[in-house]
């Protein structure tokens, strides 16, 4: 086990010989408001008076079976049993397994995924849409990925229009998403994104210098200027429903807060950080020390966001806001994401895989758009990756918030970021308490009104 990081208000670890060094079911934590308990089952948060906190602690020491203890102290209402495999909700189309940039950390090997450059034909794109419409519930989402999807813009436009028609005919509601480097953006693309319900993710790593160092064009020139041009195109010809910035964080990214502030100032609706865990070039991958620094930097961003939200201002730090929402709802899920569940990804030939990072990986093959999704493969995948079966997840208090980690990353590098994830989630739990208490104080809402939080986040 890697070492624990000194976090504020850290409670002393249980005495040696105790059943877990980590809390796996009941985790006490402190904030400026007092003592709190995170009950892993159900992701429930309680405020405790000092005596109750002590009692819980001593109970944990004396009772070996913490799961039983948790169930006894905090019983859950019986839930309806799950209905089986959930319906398909989203397919991402890898319309162009090729790219016009050469970012060093790219998992897609400049878009090629280790193969030769391929583009998806309009036929396959339409078939993917048909498959999605056939198997989805009342709502569906069509994603465009790559490489750089705009290298195959004809198919992007065609598939969008086709999907809008098909969904309308089927009486379903369709939305779209696209992840792009924005260097090839044209007016007609902007107009497409504005006239359909699109969520656009622009890959950008920071202000000009940092971005251009990490995200060069094929010829080595910088990409920042092109992104600036793209943003002004959005201003002129219409913003999409949601315009987000996706920042890839490497050990070389330096302090994150200036990057965050910079991108917020550019007017993005959301700015999210994604640390690189798997990369062909070793200098971009995180080592243990790097995770420590990363956590400190992320916390700095989180504290900034917390301050802004408490002051009643918006601050679209995606990682933080998403965490607040998930914690507020008490998200409790045994998988890290929807890959293989509601979400699948199609390669250029129309073969379906669990997600866009697992394209062409045979163990994650899940059917094809032509013949249909492979239910057995999906169910088997979900069964075998349940977090309670994973090591060391099954003993970790954060398992239902984390879900076990990205399948792609775990497969390639194992679970190396657990301390960082726990550190970040611990910070988020504390921030959640500070945020809701602070909002309650500031807005005179009583404790019965957590809606203050809802209105402030998105």
């Amino acid at each position, binding site marked *: 086990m890697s070492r624990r990081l000194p976090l504020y208000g850290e409670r002393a670890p249980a005495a040696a010989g105790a059943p877990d060094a980590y809390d796996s079911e009941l985790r006490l934590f402190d904030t400026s*408001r*007092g*003592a*709190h*308990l995170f*009950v892993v089952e*159900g*992701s*429930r*948060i*309680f*405020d*405790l*008076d*000092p*005596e*109750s906190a*002590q*009692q819980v602690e*001593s*109970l944990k020491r*004396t009772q070996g079976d913490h799961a039983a203890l948790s169930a*006894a*102290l*905090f*019983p*859950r*209402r019986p839930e309806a049993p799950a209905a089986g495999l959930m319906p398909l909700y989203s397919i991402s189309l890898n319309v162009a397994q090729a790219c016009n940039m050469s970012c060093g950390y790219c998992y897609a090997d400049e878009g090629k995924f280790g193969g030769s450059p391929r583009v998806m034909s309009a036929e396959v794109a339409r078939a993917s849409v048909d498959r999605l419409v056939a198997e989805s519930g009342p709502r569906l989402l069509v994603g465009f990925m790559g490489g750089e999807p705009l290298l195959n813009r004809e198919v992007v436009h065609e598939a969008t229009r086709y999907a809008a028609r098909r969904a309308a005919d089927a009486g379903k509601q369709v939305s779209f998403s696209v992840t792009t480097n924005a260097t090839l953006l044209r007016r007609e693309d902007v107009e497409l994104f504005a006239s359909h319900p699109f969520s656009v993710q622009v890959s950008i790593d920071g202000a000009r210098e940092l971005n251009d160092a990490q995200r060069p064009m094929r010829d080595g020139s910088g990409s920042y200027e092109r992104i600036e041009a793209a943003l002004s195109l959005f201003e002129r010809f219409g913003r999409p429903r949601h315009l987000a910035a996706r920042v890839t964080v490497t050990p070389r990214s330096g302090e994150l807060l200036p990057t965050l502030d910079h991108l917020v100032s550019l007017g993005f609706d959301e700015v999210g950080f994604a640390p690189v865990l798997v990369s062909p070039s070793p200098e971009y991958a995180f080592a243990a020390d790097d995770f420590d620094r990363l956590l400190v930097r992320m916390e700095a961003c989180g504290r900034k966001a917390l301050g802004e939200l408490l002051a009643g201002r918006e601050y679209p730090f995606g990682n933080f806001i998403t965490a607040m929402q998930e*914690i*507020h*709802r*008490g998200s*409790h899920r045994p998988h890290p994401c929807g890959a293989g569940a509601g979400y699948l990804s199609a390669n250029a030939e129309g073969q379906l895989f669990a997600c866009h990072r697992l394209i062409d990986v045979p163990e994650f093959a899940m059917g094809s758009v032509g013949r249909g999704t492979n239910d057995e493969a999906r169910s088997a995948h979900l069964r075998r990756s349940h977090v309670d079966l994973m090591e060391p997840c099954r003993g970790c208090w954060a398992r239902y918030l984390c879900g076990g980690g990205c399948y792609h990353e775990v497969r390639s590098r194992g679970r190396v970021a657990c301390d960082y994830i726990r550190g970040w989630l611990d910070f988020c739990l504390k921030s*959640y*308490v500070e945020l*809701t*208490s602070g909002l*309650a*104080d500031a807005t005179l809402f*009583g*404790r*019965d009104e*957590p809606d203050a939080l809802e209105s402030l986040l998105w």
Partner: protein
Amino acid sequence: MTSPNDKPEHEAPADKTGHEAPAGPAPKVIKIFPRNLTARADYLVPGNPVTSRPESGVDNCFPGLEYDQRNLDQRFFPGLSFEFQREDGAVLVDFKLTDAQQVSGLTRDDMPAARPLFLWALYGKFSTADAEPTLFAFHQTRGPEALRRVHDLLPGRVAIAFGPRPDFLSSGSPLFAAELIEKLHAAYEAEQPLDKFVVVRERAGLLKYAVFSDERTKYLDDDGVIDVDTFAPGELTKTLCAPWVYDFRDCVCFYWAANKPDMAEGDGRPNVNFLRERFDLGTGEAKPPPAPTPIYLEWREQLMKHGTMISGAWRDLPVVLDDREVPTDASEPPPTPPAAVAFDRLEHLFNREEAISELKYLATVEHALIVEYLYAHYSLNAPRELPASQKGKGAARQHKIFTAAGEVLRVATDEMRHFLWVNRLLRLLECDSPVTSRAKVVGLSPDRDKEKYEEKGEERPRKVIPDFKYLNRDFGLRRLTREVLQDFIRIEANSRNTGPGGVSFGMYVHLLASFMRRPLVPGRQDEAVDLIKLLVDEGDEHGKTFLRISEALGDMKEAEYLRQFRDPADRELTQEIKTLLDLGDVHYQSFLSMIHVSYALGPRAGGELISKAVLLMQELHKTGHELAAQNVPLRFTEPDQGAIRATLEAEGELAALEEIQRKTLESLRAVEGAAGPKVGRMARQQAVVTQAIYEDLKGIASRPESKGRERR
């Protein structure tokens, strides 16, 4: 905001998990608060809803915003439950005797349905000042009356007596009352259950009466929350009123105002009873509407009966709009709405020349209306500002006149804006100078107009719209008599119409269609169309405003609400008044001159100038009221714009402003010289204000970018 850590500590109940007490310090009260949604979802809240907290509830039991506090009092006596909402008295409806009360021997057989037990007397303390308890007897008292006494009971010892029949004092021996009082007193003082809970029976075993004494129920537990042991969940909210079960005949509270508009407190005007009997129950013939009455009992007599209502008559009730019933049967046709204007089918559109010509005329009309409305405003017998405290019979009346005067002033100021907008439209059409003259005829038909101008040999191509009814009404300074008010309504209403009855402002409709369908102002069409739309809509609003004014003035006599004006040309008027009249004319002239200067400066600076110039209008207004208070109207002599225009052309904007400023200050000095102390003070203040405003205006005019006219 408190956290569980702030509460004082006290004895803890047993640990609710059933675990053995752990080693370590004895646990105090466990206070665990669920913070996020899943934590809350698993936390079952026992008892009455959180909204039924007395300290946070509005103490209101009719619709009961949070809970019905009368339901607390039902259980004022431990073990017993009373029903108070009865005409015949407060009745014991249920009981669950405490252990101590069992000795009384009270059983359910003692209160058969045919012979309920009534609350007879209440003996307890009602005020903290009471040294001794007070006795209230409920002999033939209505239940709600008894509730009032019960409600005022303080916590502490209370003794009650209850028995069959509500009229307990009229039967039995005269000494019965004395016996009862003695028993109550004895029970109140007693300590033993046998003496506290006494049932006296007849020889046959029937209950004669009972006297119980106990501590009044504690409604709240130690934490200040409704005691869950006393009140079952839902008990406090069971009698809440909801809009969809509201009885719109018999619910007597006025809370849901929308359901009873005729009962809502209004301006004292009695309304037609919308829930009246509409048919004679004997003959089946329709009944004419009864005279409106402000007397509640009479109004209730007019109501249709419950049976009629329930058996379906409510479905036939007409819809009430704007205080008028919209009839549902065929014999009375619904009022015809004004004809909608089909803009794309209107014929006889204007071309550019014709539009300019028409707008030039309409500018003069707006000008004329400003003056007419202002005159009407000053003719109303109301001061410029109402004094702070108003008492006495006349106060309501004066308030009405003042409100009406305010509305007229508002319409006049709107017309000032319209006047500016029409000139702005002329500028969009690239006219060189604004139009500030005043129409002599409102709604002049172009034929007549043509005749006049043909006499003078001028070409004036105002377009004739066939079938359009032109008002052809002369301009005049008139007090706001009823006739004049009707006239104003006629002018402004039907602004949207083009059909019969449409008046001069229906002309804007043709202009609007012209601007919408023809490229009269390429590149600025949106601006022009928006302006004209506003002109049409506001005209419509003005019509409604005058209607409201007419209703507000109601049946007041003209002598009451109008001033009796003296002739401003009268030589016998004082010098003070004469100088004030001159000042009024100077103000009037400066207003018009300002428009010329603003026009010359171009849109940006011009706009700024006009908004400052509006401040000068306040001075005109003060002058107008000063005169009106002395029953003299402003002259509103139409100024000759020639001189100002000449100065403007020859010497520029700055010089023009200086000229107007000089004239104004000169006039003010004349007033000061001739006036008494009060008016003199007003004149001096005006001079200071005027000076400051003109400095600002000259500042705007002398900015380098303001020089010269803007040319597109």
